[in-house]
Every structure is written in structure tokens, then in C-alpha cells.
């Protein structure tokens, strides 16, 4: 038995408007979760909406999300706290709404079930009421035993590169064939047996980028010559620049070929730097699967404000990416995505590069800043700027992101984001579920109550594997405020044996400046440096990820919020071993370090008594390791430097 943890992504939408104060159903979808000793760990829903007020601004006095799995009686989460309008339009994302208990109770023994989501908005002000382009994103996390299963599920998250500015006003392909081939010779999942698509959808997100214009726009998405998805008109009467999220569920895309992805807005060019991402949840046969393309998400942060006004003062984020999966490793369509607040007006001139790429210049367009902005830039060879890695290999890879602005007034604030990394590899002995993957864990459910401090008690993630390496750990925060300036902190409480063993530590701290309008802002916190990298990490300053602890959200200006944890990890292990000789018979402490690490940090520690064999599980077999041993002052030693 090998228990695994997996997150699958699904989406639901409603084409028609949601009438004010009316519980309205999204289209029913089918969701999947492998049932082999299955335990649901998270069923989290984020709801996106756009109001359509044309004057005054529409305060939401109450909102609800209802969830029904397999036709069961719905569980409804009701929020009575106002989301007060500030005279502008409101659009954005609310969540997460946590329906884990409902899934646990109502999901049938089968591997699939129907899901019905409904939403309710009661607006108490505004001239034209109701919500438009409402959709829901579901992250379904469950634990299961992968031993003996014949099929399994997976969600591939494939980023599509943003346009550099506003979307065109006529049908236009973004980039070239940004929908990759999945199956067949040369496909990303060429050697995955019996791949069957369960749901494919596109998330399009970004800031309206209206540039103070009151002209409405209509978003259109299309794959090749399939039917164009034309969304309902985005109301811009109040010339507000909100963060918006659209979802287009598209079945029937030929998996054996690449496709053009087209996006444009009619009425006016809008949705600057639109971030489009394709989610494909599929089922595959375990036997016969000899290669796989994993999706791994790594959070990134850039201290505010953004560097500028020239490249010489760019902000930089850098980290190591470890690839433990078997050969042959090939980088697939991947990208870096940034979320940021432009300032009190539009951020002029945003320039981004990854590794050796040339800078790509973007044109943000949020003049009346009522939400965050975002962009997405590919770093594989098929992107506009070419590859961001000189080579992408098994072992260690260095990811370097440089960003700068040319604007000296609106500086770019609260910058964070994610690296969406897709790479193909052989299949490890532990199977695909042991590969690097990203899961979502509930932390702090959505609450519209405005406050300066909110504490979530006793969060205790469970990683079922005995041995695992955390490649990334962080938090995805949905933040709503109406302040011209705000400071945000996300903190965790130290437990016994962790650093000072008490008190709170900052996991994220940043500030932002914008218009004092009700705004939805996405924040990704990178916290890996604060958590143990594996269950027996000898660094006692780090926190154990699975230990129950309190977290708290602190902000200068009151805000509403919801938070989830994401964990990117693998459970591929290798055995480093050797023999101790010359001992006096006491306890020999053994310290394992990467020989390539300039400071030779101890990554693993074990011990044995007297002479004899020792072994340590390590999570990377590419670098040379150096092992030191200490028994007492007259019995010390070191190994040769070598791979495992």
C-alpha cells in the first residue's frame, strides 16, 4: 500500500447572468477522484463574477455558494458580511469555499460523480443588478492508495503566453499553436497509455485594462475552427479596471495535434496581458505508461516596489529547480506568471525575462485600479522569447526571473506569482504518483468580514508518503480591500523544536499602493525556506510542514480574505550507503551534504553504533555527496565525494 495525495482541477460556469438575490445554478459537471481507500482532503471552490452596475456601484450584502455532489442535498456556505462597493464596478474572485465535508459525505464509491454548484448574490446598491460571466474553479484534493490501481487521474496545467498589451479586436491567434499535442508521436503524453480526457477548460484572467474608458468589451476565445466562445459583455460603465476571470470549457479538441488558441475582445481592446491557461483533467492506464509530463507549480515573490526604471535596476527572483524523475527529461510548454498591483494608475512599461531571454515589454492598462493585474510569459523554446533555461536537465536547474518597470510614478506593488513548470520524463519506480506534483490544502476559508487580523487555528496538512521532498511550499491568498495603501503579512506560529520554538514568523510581507477602490488581488506566498524540505530535515530552524499550527493574516487596512496552501513535492528516493570502520564502538553520527553546495549544508543525518553499514534516503541522485562521520574527538572521518 502506498498512499498518495493528488489534486485534480475542474471548472463549472454559467453563461446566463445571475439575477440579483436569486440562487442560480452553474452548469452541472462531472468530477473524478480515484477511489482506492480514498479520503477527501480538500474540495475548494473559487467563484468569479462581474457586476453589471452602470451607476453608484453595487454593494453585495450577501453571497452564497451551494454545492451538491451526486445529487445530494446541497451544502450552502453563506456570507452575510458586505462586500461594499466604492462607487466602482466590482469583479473578481471569491474563495476558497470549503466543501470538503460535503464531498466526504456524498461522493459515491465510484471514481466519478456529478457536481452541481449554485451561487447567490444580493446586491444592496447599484442601478443595474445581477452578476455576469460567473464561473467556479474547483481544486479537489484526495488521498488514495495507488497500489494495484489500473487507471489514475491527472490534471495538466498548460500555460499560454500572454499578449504584450491589450487583446486585439479581431480574431487573432495568441502566439503560434499554443495548445500542445497531447497524444500520438511527439505529444506531451505520447507514452501515456489510454489517455482519456475528462474535462478541458481554459481560464482567462487579467485586468480589464480599460485605461479609464467606459466602453464595454466582449471576450472571445476560440480553438482553431471550433465554435467561438463569446462571453457576455463585460460592463464598463464606471470605467473601473477590475481583475477578471473567465472560464471556457471546451471538449472535443483533437488530442493528437497542436492547435491555435485565439483570443480577442470586441468593442474595444481590453484585458491587457490576458493570462490564459489550459487545464486538462484526464484518466490514463497505469500499465504501459512509460513516460509522463508533470505539472509543478513554484511560487515566487518580488519585494515591492518593482525594480526600475531601467534594466540595470531590475528585480530578480532566483531559485533552484530539482528534477529527480528518470531520463529522458525534456522541458515542455511552461511559463512564469506574475500578479501585481500597478499603482495609483497604470504601470508604464513592464519588462520581463527568464534566464537568457531578451526582455519582453508589456503594456499594463489599469488606470482606475480596482484589482490586480497579471501576465504570463513562456520560458520554453516555443515562447515569444525562446527558452529561459540554457538547458533543462535531471538534477539541478537554476530559474532566474528579471523584471523591471520604466514608470517612475506607478511602481508596481505586491508582486508575486508562480512558475508553472511542465517537463516530460520517464516513469519512476514508484510510479507517476511519486513524481513531482502540486496539491492544494485548505487553510483559511473565504470570509468577507473586513478585519486587520484573522487567525486560523490548527492547520495540519497530511502528506501520506513516508518519504517526500518538498520542492515548493507556499500559500495562495485571495485578498479584497478598498484601501489606497496596504501592508500584508502572512505568518505561521513556531512550534516546539522549530527555531525559537514559539512566536510568529513572517512567511509573506509586502505592501501595495493603488486606488482606494474595492479590489480583488491575488497573492502567492513562497514559504519553502521556512519549512523542512523532507520529513527528517536536520535544520531545526525550519518548521515541519505536517505539524499542526496556527496561521494568521495581518494587514494594515482591513480586508477580506481566503487562503490555501500548495505543496509541490515528490517521493522519489535514492539510497546513499557506505560502511563505517575504525569505530571505537560508540555512536557514530553521520552527516550527508551535497558536495556541490558551496556551504555544504547538512541535508541528511543518521547514526549507527560502531562499525558497519549505514544508509540514508536522499531525493536526488545527480550531484556528488560528501559524508562526514563523527564519533568522538579521536574518531572522525569523511567519505570520498561521489554520487549515490
Amino acid at each position: 500500500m502506498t498512499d498518495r495525495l493528488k489534486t485534480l482541477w475542474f471548472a463549472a460556469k454559467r453563461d446566463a447572468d445571475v439575477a440579483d438575490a436569486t440562487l442560480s445554478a452553474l452548469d452541472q459537471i462531472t468530477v473524478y477522484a480515484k477511489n482506492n481507500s480514498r479520503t477527501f482532503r480538500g474540495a475548494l471552490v473559487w467563484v468569479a463574477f462581474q457586476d453589471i452596475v452602470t451607476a453608484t456601484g453595487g454593494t453585495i450584502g450577501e453571497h452564497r455558494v451551494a454545492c451538491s455532489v451526486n445529487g445530494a442535498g446541497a451544502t450552502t456556505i453563506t456570507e452575510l458580511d458586505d462586500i461594499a462597493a466604492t462607487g466602482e464596478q466590482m469583479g473578481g474572485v471569491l474563495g476558497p469555499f470549503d466543501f470538503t465535508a460535503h464531498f466526504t459525505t456524498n461522493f459515491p464509491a465510484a471514481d466519478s460523480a456529478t457536481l452541481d454548484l449554485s451561487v447567490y448574490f444580493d446586491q444592496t446598491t447599484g442601478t443595474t443588478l445581477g452578476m455576469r460571466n460567473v464561473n467556479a474553479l474547483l481544486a479537489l484534493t484526495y488521498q488514495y492508495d495507488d497500489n494495484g490501481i489500473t487507471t489514475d487521474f491527472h490534471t495538466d496545467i498548460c500555460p499560454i503566453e500572454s499578449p504584450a498589451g491589450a487583446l486585439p479586436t479581431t480574431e487573432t491567434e495568441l502566439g503560434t499553436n499554443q495548445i500542445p499535442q497531447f497524444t500520438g508521436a511527439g505529444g506531451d503524453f505520447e507514452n501515456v497509455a489510454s489517455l482519456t480526457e475528462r474535462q478541458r477548460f481554459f481560464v482567462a484572467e487579467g485586468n480589464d485594462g480599460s485605461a479609464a474608458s467606459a466602453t464595454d468589451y466582449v471576450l472571445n476565445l476560440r480553438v482553431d475552427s471550433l465554435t467561438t466562445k463569446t462571453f457576455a459583455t463585460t460592463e464598463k460603465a464606471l470605467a473601473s479596471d477590475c481583475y477578471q476571470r473567465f472560464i471556457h470549457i471546451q471538449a472535443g479538441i483533437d488530442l493528437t495535434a497542436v492547435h491555435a488558441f485565439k483570443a480577442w475582445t470586441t468593442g474595444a481592446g481590453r484585458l491587457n496581458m490576458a493570462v490564459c491557461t489550459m487545464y486538462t483533467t484526464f484518466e490514463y492506464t497505469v500499465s504501459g505508461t512509460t513516460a509522463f509530463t508533470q505539472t509543478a507549480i513554484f511560487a515566487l515573490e518580488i519585494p515591492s516596489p518593482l525594480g526600475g526604471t531601467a534594466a540595470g535596476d531590475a528585480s530578480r527572483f532566483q531559485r533552484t529547480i530539482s528534477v529527480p524523475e528518470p531520463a529522458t527529461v525534456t522541458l515542455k510548454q511552461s511559463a512564469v506568471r506574475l500578479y501585481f498591483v500597478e499603482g495609483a494608475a497604470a504601470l508604464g512599461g513592464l519588462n520581463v525575462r527568464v534566464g537568457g531571454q531578451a526582455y519582453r515589454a508589456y503594456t499594463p492598462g489599469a488606470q482606475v485600479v480596482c484589482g490586480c493585474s497579471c501576465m504570463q510569459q513562456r520560458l520554453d523554446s516555443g515562447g515569444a522569447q525562446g527558452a529561459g533555461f540554457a538547458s533543462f536537465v535531471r538534477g539541478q536547474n537554476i530559474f532566474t526571473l528579471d523584471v523591471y518597470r520604466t514608470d517612475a510614478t506607478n511602481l508596481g506593488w505586491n508582486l508575486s506569482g508562480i512558475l508553472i513548470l511542465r517537463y516530460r520524463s520517464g516513469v519512476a519506480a514508484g510510479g507517476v504518483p511519486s513524481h513531482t506534483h502540486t496539491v492544494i490544502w485548505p487553510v483559511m476559508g473565504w470570509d468577507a468580514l473586513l478585519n486587520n487580523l484573522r487567525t486560523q487555528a490548527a492547520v495540519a496538512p497530511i502528506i501520506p508518503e513516508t518519504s517526500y521532498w518538498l520542492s515548493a511550499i507556499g500559500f495562495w491568498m485571495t485578498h479584497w480591500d478598498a484601501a489606497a495603501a496596504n501592508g500584508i503579512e502572512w505568518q505561521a506560529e513556531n512550534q516546539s523544536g522549530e527555531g525559537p520554538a514559539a512566536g510568529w514568523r513572517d512567511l509573506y510581507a509586502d505592501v501595495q499602493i493603488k486606488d482606494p477602490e474595492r479590489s480583488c488581488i491575488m497573492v502567492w506566498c513562497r514559504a519553502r525556506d521556512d519549512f523542512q524540505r523532507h520529513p527528517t530535515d536536520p535544520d531545526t530552524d525550519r518548521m515541519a510542514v505536517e505539524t499542526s499550527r496556527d496561521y494568521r493574516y495581518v494587514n494594515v487596512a482591513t480586508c477580506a480574505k481566503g487562503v490555501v496552501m500548495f505543496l509541490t513535492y515528490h517521493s522519489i528516493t535514492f539510497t546513499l550507503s557506505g560502511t563505517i570502520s575504525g569505530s571505537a564502538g560508540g555512536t557514530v553520527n553521520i552527516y550527508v551534504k551535497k558536495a556541490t553546495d558551496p556551504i555544504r549544508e547538512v541535508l541528511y543525518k543518521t547514526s549507527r553504533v560502531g562499525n558497519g553499514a549505514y544508509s540514508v534516503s536522499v531525493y536526488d541522485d545527480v550531484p556528488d555527496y560528501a559524508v562526514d562521520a563523527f564519533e568522538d574527538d579521536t574518531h572522525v572521518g569523511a567519505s570520498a565525494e561521489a554520487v549515490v
Partner: protein
Amino acid sequence: MAHDIALRDPGTAFDIALAEGALGGVLGMVAESDAAQAIAWAPKDRLVTTVTESDTAQAIGHARAYTIAQATESDGAQPISHARAHSLALAAETDAPQPLAVDKAKALGLASEGDTAQALSRQKADQVGMASEADSAQALESQKVKALGMAAEADVAQTITPGTAITEAIDTVFEVDTAQPIAWAPKHRLLGMAAEFDQALGITWAGAPVVPPGPAPGPVVVLGGRRKRQGHWPEIPERTPLQAVDEEEELLLLFL
């Protein structure tokens, strides 16, 4: 690959040094032979401060270590010379320096036994800070050693004298017989100290007053010299009246 570890006493063995040696770094001390062999096999050793046993040095030599500050045993030094080590600050035993000399070691800070110095002198070592036995000095002198800070035994000085000419300073001669031939040497400019009473006798033969231990035999004026007091050798001012030679002073040396 197995990461085997042999535990050792860091006073005599440094496996850690082994590892560093493999990276071509600095190896502060190698105390046992097998360890050093392995280091030698690593191609980039640059510095080995101390080598204390023989097999160690062999291997280091093969790896062309450039500097060995101290070699304390004989066999060790042999292969070092084969590798043309440039500097051997201290060789503590006899056989070791031999091969160094053969290979033109440039500096030998201290040779402590006789055979060592022989070989060095044959190869024109330019400087020997100290030679502690007789045969060493012989050879050195015959090869025009310019400075000999201290000669500790008698035969050394004998030979130095007939070696003539170039020895300019001998600070201290510790034994009696030594001083004798020194006195015979016509060109010594300075004999700082003779360390035993019999030496002074010998010095007398070269023209200095004789002052045996015990009460002074009447009024005596010291022309110069040094006396040992509590381990030090303060200089006696010129023409100091000498009442007696205190037995607690152990020695009294007169200066010419």
C-alpha cells in the same frame, strides 16, 4: 558508489583533509601515511604543511606538492625530493634530508642531525638555521655556509674553523671542546657565548682571562663577557670588578 568512511584520530589522520585534497585545496596537516597517499593521488594538492611519516610523503611527492613545511621522518623525505619539493623547513631525522639535497632543496631551516646536513652541504644549501650535531656542521662549512646560528657540539666548531674564511657569526657554542678550536680560528669576529666553564678555559688559551669558579683570586677586572643568571645571559659590563664566580650562576663566560 559506496560512501565508506574510516574513522581516525584527527591528530594523526585527517580524512577530512583527504576530501579537501581531492578538491585541490589546502591541507593543513597530514599525520599518517595512508592518508597522504590518497592525497597524492589527487592531482591538485598545493600545500602540505606537515608530513610526519614516511609513506605519506612518498605519495605527496608523486603528486608534486610544492611545499612541505616539515618532514619529521626519514623515508618520507626521500620521495619528496624526487618530486622536487622546493622548501623543507624542518627535517628532523637523518635520512630524510639526504634525498632532498640530491634534489636541490633550496632551504632547510633546521637540520637536527648529522647526516642530514652532509647531504645538504653537498648540494650547496644556502642557509641552515641551526645544525645541532657535529657532522652536519662539517659538511656545511666545507660548502661555505654563510650563517650558522648555533652549533651545539664540539666537533662542529672544530671543523668550522678549519673551514676558514666565511663563517661570520657563531652566537653560541655550548660545549667545551667546541670553544677550543674556535679560539684557534683567526678570523672569528664574534663569539657571543661559550656555555661551559671548560670552554672559558679554552677561550683563555686564545687570550682571555681565566676565572675559575669560587672566590675571586684577588682583584679581577673583567674585560667583558656574560654570565648566566636564571637562565639568561646578561652581558657583563666591560671592566667590571669580579669578586667571585657564584656557583649558582652556573657558568661564567668571558668575552674576548
